[in-house]
Each structure stands twice: as C-alpha cells, then as structure tokens.
C-alpha cells in the first residue's frame, strides 16, 4: 500500500472503532434528549479527525476526501446526528482548503485548527431568502475609521451545533451596496461572535445536531473574508461536497435500517427452522432499493474524484445537475429504505426500545429532503435542464 492509503486505512480503523464503541452507545440518548453528541465529537477530536482533510503542509493528516466520505457513512450507520455534525464540519474544512488562494490568515487558521481541533459550523441559510443559499440579505459592513475590521448581523433560521462550534463560516453580501448574489464567505470565531437564540430545538429527527435559529452578530478582521467570491466557492466546492458527504450519511442510516431488518428476519428464521419467513421476501425488496441508493452515492463519488481538480468542469451546469441529482435521489431514497425496513420488522421496528427499532433511522432520514429543500433544487434543475445538453 502507498503511504496515503496507509494513512486512510488507519484513519478509518479509528473511525470504525469510535463509531461502534462511542457513537452507537450514545445514539439513543442523544436522540431522546435532542442533545449534542459530546462523547463522539470529543473522541473525534482525540483522533485528530476534525483536521483529517488539512494537508500535511499545514500540520494536518492529509486524509483523502474519499476516506472522509467513508467515515460519514460509517458514523451514519451508528448515529445520524454525530455523522451530520462531523460531515458539516468537514464541508467547511474542505471548502477552506480548496480556496486558500495563498491567504496567510487562512493558512495559519488551518494550523490552529489542527492544534486545537476546532469545530466549524456554517451559517449559510438566512431568513428572507426563501431558502436560496445563493442570495444574502445581511451584509459585511466596514467599520468607520478601521479599514481592517468589519461587522455583520445575520438572521439565521438554523445554525447546526452553533452553540458548540469554535468558529462559524458565514455567507454575507460583500458590502452594504452589494446585490443579493454578490456574496462572500467570512470565518468568524465564536469568541468574536454573539449568538442570540430565536427559537427552541425539538425537531422530528437529527435531534443531536442542535440546530435552532440565531441572530448572529460579529466583528471580524477583514483578513477573515475568503478571497474567492462565494458563488465560485459554492459551485466548485461547497455544494458538491455537501451533497456527497450528506448522501454518505443517508446511505449509512439506510444501511443500518436494512441491517436491523435483516437481523429481524434471521431471528425469525432461527425460531422456526424450515418454515417460510414472509418477512424475508420483504427484505429482498428492501435490498433492491438500498442497492439503488448505494449505486447513486458511489457513482457520484467516482464522478467527483475524476473532476475534483478541474474547477472549470465543476462550474459547468452539467456538473451542477449531477450533484443536485445526487442530493435529490439520495434524500428521497433513504427514507424509503428506512420505511420499508420498518415494514419488515413490524411492531418491533416501530417500538423504540428493541434491537430492531428503526424509528430514529426513519426520522433522521426524513431531514434529508429538507436540508436545502428538494423542491428548490428541483426548481434549479428545471431551469438548468432547459439549456444543458448532456445529462
């Protein structure tokens, strides 16, 4: 094996162990309490997993994106909320790494992220944009008399694990005169930020992500504004990476739902050897649906791996359609698999306290179509399909 493959394998061995020994153990309590998965995130910090994607030249472990996506899958099988916190953090790290553009401040920031295992949350959604991440209302506003600093105030309908993050990556209009689509991304340290809660957090699923709304206010040095315009950051990195990592989690959740259904069928078969097990037929149907989900997730990863260095290609409509479709297909398929798996298990799948419980999986997977609403993505795709040639 190459050195890089060894590093990936060691990283994934650590994640496997942590997923079983920690994430799985606390998953039900995290879910019941709608509480932050502290134990899992602490364990990820101990394994330096929060800086996995940081290249070695900044002190990170230079783990491949494929291995991080696999880690999202592995964690998703054990605790969807822990996996989602992990994935959302990695999306921010990957985005910063891919758009460093030689910024000394961001290079130093990566070194600090490695040393302190800082957790980054994102503040991209905003009240008043109708869920359209490519528009902002709040603006980065220069401070009179101090050209090196700026302020902002943003009304965020959800900030996942906002209260637990060390830093926030925030989208804003570039200046008070900028149009809604003229956006930048700004890194704000929690210590420079105040979060004023605007609601409570008691959702159906993904309860451990702790994502209430906040008014986010901060004063930041302008060196913390990423150099590239946010529309290119979004197209070339943030959107496809989000869809890839999320869909690996949803595949993980659906896979565990399938595994529980299979365990149920095996238990039934053992109780009555030689007798037909009606649920076994249903399980076969679930497998068909799971394999479609897996195929879409894996082929999207392959498409990404072939194109990830080619920014021009990533910015084409054909690619936008590809990764939007991944999100749509995976987010619709994962709850379908979970629901069918519950149908296999029957009442013991419906109950929350059996080895075959699938309620959490079903509820967690139902968040998938809301994380950037599918109807909005369909609307975007509908426009792109008018002009794209090969899809």
């Amino acid at each position: 094996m190459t050195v890089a493959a060894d590093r990936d394998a060691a990283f994934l061995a650590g994640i496997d162990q942590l997923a079983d020994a920690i994430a799985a153990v606390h998953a039900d309590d995290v879910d019941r309490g709608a509480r932050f998965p502290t134990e899992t995130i602490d364990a990820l910090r101990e394994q330096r997993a929060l800086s996995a994607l940081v290249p070695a030249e900044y002190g990170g472990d230079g783990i491949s994106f494929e291995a991080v996506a696999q880690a999202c899958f592995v964690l998703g099988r054990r605790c969807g909320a822990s996996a989602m916190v992990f994935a959302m953090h990695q999306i921010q790290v990957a985005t910063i790494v891919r758009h460093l553009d030689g910024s000394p401040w961001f290079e130093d920031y990566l070194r600090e992220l490695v040393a302190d295992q800082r957790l980054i949350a994102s503040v991209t959604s905003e009240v008043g944009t109708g869920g359209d991440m490519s528009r902002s209302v709040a603006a980065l506003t220069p401070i009179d008399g101090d050209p090196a600093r700026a302020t902002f105030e943003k009304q965020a309908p959800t900030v996942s694990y906002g209260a637990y993050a060390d830093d926030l990556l925030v989208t804003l209009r570039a200046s008070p005169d900028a149009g809604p689509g003229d956006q930048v991304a700004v890194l704000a340290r929690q210590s420079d930020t105040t979060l004023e809660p605007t609601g409570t957090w008691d959702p159906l699923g993904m309860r451990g992500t702790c994502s209430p709304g906040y008014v986010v206010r901060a004063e930041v040095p302008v060196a913390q504004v990423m150099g590239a315009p946010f529309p290119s950051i979004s197209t070339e990195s943030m959107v496809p990476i989000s869809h890839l990592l999320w869909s690996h989690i949803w595949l993980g959740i659906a896979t565990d739902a399938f595994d529980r259904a299979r365990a149920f069928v095996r238990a039934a078969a053992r109780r009555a050897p030689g007798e037909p097990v009606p649920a076994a037929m249903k399980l076969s149907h679930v497998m068909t649906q799971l394999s479609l989900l897996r195929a879409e997730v894996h082929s999207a990863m392959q498409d990404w791996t072939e194109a990830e260095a080619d920014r021009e290609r990533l910015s084409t409509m054909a690619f936008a359609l590809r990764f939007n479709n991944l999100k749509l297909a995976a987010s619709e398929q994962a709850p379908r698999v979970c629901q069918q798996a519950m149908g296999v298990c029957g009442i013991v799948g419906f109950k929350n306290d059996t080895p075959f419980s699938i309620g959490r999986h079903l509820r967690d997977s139902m968040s998938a179509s809301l994380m950037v609403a599918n109807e909005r993505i369909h609307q975007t795709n509908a426009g792109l399909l008018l002009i794209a040639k090969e899809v």
Partner: protein
Amino acid sequence: MSFPAVREIVSEHGRLSVDVTTLSDDDSLYEAGMTSHASVNVMLALEDAYDVEFPDEMLKRSVFESVGSISSALSQLDVQVA
C-alpha cells in the same frame, strides 16, 4: 457601445437592476443583478437568436459573466458578433 445585439438580449432576459448600456464589456452581469435563473434565459435567447447550441463545457458562470465574455463565447462558435 460594443456588441449591441448581445446587450439587447441581456437587457431583455437578464433582469438586470441597471441599464445594460451603462455597463462596460467586462462589468459583471451577476453583480448587476442577473440571477442564475435569468442567466439560463439569456442563454436560451442567445441560442435562439444566433441559431447555435452552447456545448456543456461553455455552460458555466464565467462564460456568461459579462457582455464581453458572452461575445467571445459566441465568436468561438463562429458567430459574427457585431
């Protein structure tokens, strides 16, 4: 003013918040208020007006960034842009 025919299409379909004649060839249409959705309509109108098809590799933000970039893309498709 250069590329008046392209400007007319941009003006009709780009939903700019400013008058297209006030923009230079290189000024960003996105900064002038063109949304991604409006840019699709600009592309469709250009394909229709010049009887061309933009290949997928040209269908990206940077190609439709400005009057100048649109005009040079059209030239690459052998369209005589006035």
